C-alpha cells in the first residue's frame, strides 16, 4: 500500500515504498494533535496564562516591552588560526553588525591545558588553530583583543570547558586591567559548561567533576565580589541537546546543573545566594527544526527557573528570578549535502529562538557540517538575524505565541516532563553523579541512535540528504581551510614568553597557584597573579593534574 501523505514526488525521490507514515510527534516524543483547544492546557498552567511579559513566572518573557527595549544580542562563535586571525574575524563580524563577540580558543591546547609543545599536540600539529586561536599566555589574548572596544562591548572570553575557564577569564580580565579598565565596569561572560566538558565534547584529559565544580563556584564568588557586570558561568543545555538530550531532558538537566552550583555556593556559605542565583541565570539552550516545541521550551525554561529559585532557595529578588537565555541554533541540524539549504534552516531555528524570547543568538553557519565558518558563512549568520530583527516586526510584540492553545499546552507539557527528568537525575545522586556514571550519556545515546534511524529510514525526511536530492545548483562549498602557520607561530611565541618573562616571578606565582588548588581559597586571585607573571596554559594544566588527577570517562556504547 502506498500512503500519499507526503505526496508522490517525495516517495519517488526517496526510491522506496514508504513503510512508515509520517510521524506526528516531536523529536522528544510528544504526540501532536491536529489542533489544540482550551482543554489541552492543564489547569495549573491556565492560571498563569493571562499574565503579561515581564510578570512572574516569566514564561512570557522577562521584560514587559520585550525586544523594543532590549533587542537580542547578535552573538556568533568565532575564531581560528593565530590570535591576530581571530582578531580580524571578530572585527569583521562587529563591522557587519554583530553586537557582542565570542572568542574561541584552540581546542587542542585550551580544552586540554596543553602548550603547543605537548606531545599530544605535536602529534596533531595540523589541527592547531582549526577550532580557535592558540592562546597560551596573556600576550596571545592581548593580540586577539587588540583594538576591540571591550570597555563597552559584551565579550565572551572563551573557557567553554570547565578546566580552561579560570585561565581564559583571568587572561581577558588581565588585558582589561592593563588597558586601565576597572573590572567592576567590565561586562561580558564566561561559560565553564559541564554539558560540554563532561558530556558533549569529552576531552582526552580533564580534571574530575568535583574540582570542576569548585572552580565554577570560585569564579561565581570572584565575580560577585569584583566583576558585578560579568556573567561568570553559563550552563549550556545546548551541548546536552546537540549530543542527544531531547527538549525536556535538556530542561531537566539544566535545572539539575543549577542545583549543583547553588547547593555548592550555599554549602560554602561565603556568598549571598540571591547574588549567586542572579549570576547563574544566563543560560544557553539550543533551538532545532522543532520550531514550536523549542520556542515553548524557552518559555518553560523561564517558568522552571522562577519555580526552582523561589521554592528550593526561597529567592524573591526579581532580577535573580528572571532567566536570561542565549540560543545557538543546532549545529547537528545542518547538512553536508546542499549546504545552502542550511541558510533556511538557520533562519527557522533563529525564528524559533526569537519567538521563544531569547536574549542573545548565534546562528550556526551554513557550512557547519563541513568546516568552521568561512567569512561568508559567518556574515550570513549575522544577516539572518538582521533580516529577522529589522524586516519582520518580530521585535514589536513580546511573546507573540502567548495564548496559543498549542504553545501553552506544549509549554506546560515540557515543564512537567522537564521536572520529571530533573527528579530522575536527583534520584541518581545529582547532575555531577550522572555525568560521572555515564547515566546522562546513555540517555543521549538512546536518542542519537533513534533520531539517526528516523532520518535515514525516511520517517523524518532531511531535504537534500534523504529526500529531494536532485541539485541543479553549480555551487559547491569546499569548506574553510583556516591558516597554515598557527602551530609554528604559537611555538615561537611560547619560546619568547619563556625567554623574556621574569622566571622567578613566574615560578613563585605557579607555586602559589598549586598551593591554592590544595586549600580552600578562591583560585582566581592566584590565577590572576600567575597570568600577570606570564605563566603559560600548559604549566597551569600540569599544576591541576598534579593536584586533582584525571576524570575517568564513563564507557558508553
Amino acid at each position, binding site marked *: 500500500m502506498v500512503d500519499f501523505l507526503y505526496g508522490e514526488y517525495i516517495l519517488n525521490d526517496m526510491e522506496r515504498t514508504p513503510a512508515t507514515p509520517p510521524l506526528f510527534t516531536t523529536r522528544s516524543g510528544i504526540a501532536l494533535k491536529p489542533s489544540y483547544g482550551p482543554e489541552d492546557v492543564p489547569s495549573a498552567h491556565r492560571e498563569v496564562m493571562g499574565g503579561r511579559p515581564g510578570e512572574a513566572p516569566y514564561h512570557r518573557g522577562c521584560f514587559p516591552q520585550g525586544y523594543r527595549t532590549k533587542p537580542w544580542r547578535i552573538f556568533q562563535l568565532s575564531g581560528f588560526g593565530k590570535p591576530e586571525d581571530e582578531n580580524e574575524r571578530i572585527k569583521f563580524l562587529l563591522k557587519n553588525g554583530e553586537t557582542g563577540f565570542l572568542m574561541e580558543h584552540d581546542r587542542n591546547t585550551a580544552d586540554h591545558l596543553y602548550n603547543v609543545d605537548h606531545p599530544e599536540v605535536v602529534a*596533531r600539529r*595540523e*589541527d592547531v588553530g582549526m577550532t580557535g586561536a592558540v592562546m597560551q599566555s596573556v600576550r596571545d589574548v592581548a593580540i586577539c583583543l587588540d583594538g576591540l572596544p571591550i570597555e563597552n562591548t559584551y565579550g565572551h572570553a572563551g573557557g567553554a570547558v570547565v578546566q580552561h575557564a579560570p585561565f581564559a577569564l583571568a587572561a581577558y580580565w588581565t588585558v582589561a586591567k592593563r588597558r586601565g579598565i576597572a573590572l567592576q565596569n567590565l561586562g561580558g561572560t564566561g561559560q565553564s559548561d559541564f554539558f560540554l566538558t563532561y558530556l558533549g*565534547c569529552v576531552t582526552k584529559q580533564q580534571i574530575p567533576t568535583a574540582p570542576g565544580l569548585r572552580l565554577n563556584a570560585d569564579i561565581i564568588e570572584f565575580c560577585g565580589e569584583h566583576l558585578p557586570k560579568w556573567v561568570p558561568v553559563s550552563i549550556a543545555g545546548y551541548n546536552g541537546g*546537540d549530543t542527544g538530550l531531547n527538549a525536556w531532558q535538556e530542561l531537566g538537566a539544566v535545572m539539575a546543573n543549577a542545583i549543583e552550583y547553588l547547593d555548592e555556593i550555599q554549602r560554602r556559605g561565603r556568598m549571598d545566594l540571591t547574588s549567586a542565583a542572579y549570576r547563574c541565570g544566563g543560560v544557553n539552550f539550543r533551538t532545532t527544526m522543532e520550531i514550536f516545541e523549542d520556542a515553548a521550551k524557552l518559555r518553560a525554561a523561564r517558568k522552571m527557573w522562577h519555580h526552582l529559585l523561589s521554592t528550593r532557595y526561597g529567592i524573591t529578588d526579581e532580577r535573580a528570578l528572571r532567566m536570561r537565555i542565549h540560543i545557538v541554533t543546532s549545529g547537528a541540524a545542518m547538512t*553536508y*549535502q546542499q549546504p545552502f539549504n542550511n541558510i533556511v534552516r538557520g533562519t527557522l531555528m533563529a525564528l524559533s529562538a526569537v519567538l521563544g524570547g531569547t536574549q542573545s543568538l548565534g546562528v550556526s553557519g551554513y557550512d557547519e557540517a563541513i568546516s568552521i565558518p568561512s567569512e561568508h558563512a559567518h556574515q550570513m549568520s549575522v544577516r539572518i538575524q538582521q533580516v529577522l530583527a529589522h524586516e519582520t516586526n518580530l521585535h514589536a510584540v513580546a511573546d507573540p505565541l502567548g495564548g496559543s492553545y498549542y504553545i501553552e499546552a506544549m509549554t506546560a507539557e515540557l515543564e512537567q516532563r522537564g521536572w520529571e527528568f530533573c527528579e530522575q537525575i536527583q534520584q541518581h545522586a545529582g547532575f555531577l553523579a550522572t555525568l560521572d556514571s555515564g547515566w546522562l550519556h546513555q540517555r543521549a545515546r538512546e536518542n*542519537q541512535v533513534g533520531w*539517526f534511524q528516523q532520518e535515514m529510514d525516511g520517517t523524518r525526511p532531511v531535504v537534500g540528504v534523504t529526500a529531494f536530492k536532485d541539485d541543479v545548483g553549480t555551487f559547491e562549498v569546499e569548506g574553510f581551510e583556516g591558516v597554515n602557520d598557527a602551530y609554528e607561530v604559537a611555538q615561537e611565541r611560547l619560546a619568547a614568553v619563556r625567554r623574556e618573562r621574569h622566571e622567578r616571578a613566574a615560578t613563585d606565582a605557579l607555586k602559589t597557584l598549586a598551593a591554592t588548588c590544595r586549600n580552600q581559597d578562591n583560585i582566581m586571585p592566584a590565577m590572576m597573579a600567575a597570568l600577570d607573571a606570564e605563566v603559560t596554559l600548559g604549566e597551569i594544566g600540569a599544576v591541576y593534574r598534579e593536584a586533582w588527577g584525571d576524570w575517568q570517562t564513563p564507557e558508553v556504547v
Partner: protein
Amino acid sequence: MNSALTEVTPPAHAPRILLVKTALDGHWRGISVVARALRDGGFHVILGGMITGAEIVRAAIDEDVDLVGLNIGGHVGVAERCIAELRAARPELPIFCGGVIAPWAVKRLKALEVEVYPPGSTLEDIVGAARRLTQTTTAV
C-alpha cells in the same frame, strides 16, 4: 567514547575493527552511532579513543584488527600522517574514514585510495564498506 580500547560485544570469529579519533576533539555522537551499527552488523569493534598515529599502529597490531576506521574531526593532515604510519607498519590493512571532512579534504584522502564516508552517508553504506574491506583479510 575516549576511554582506551573498549571492546564491544565480540561475536566469535567476527572481523575486528579499530575505530579511533585522530583529533583531540571529543565530539562522540557520530562515532558512537557508527560503532553500534558495526557491532550490530556482526563486527567486533574496538574503540581506541583519541590516539596518535603511533598509538593507532600499536593498537592495530596488538588487537590484530582487520580494518581501521579513522574518525576525522580535525585537519586532514593529521589523518594523512596516521595513514602513512599505518601503511608503513601494516601495508595490507584496509582503512576507511568518516567524520566532518570538507570536500577539499575528501579529495586528498581519496587520492590516497582511502574510502571516505562524510556526513549524510548511511549506516548501510558504512557497514557494507566494512564487509567488503574485510573480506580479503578474513576469508577462510
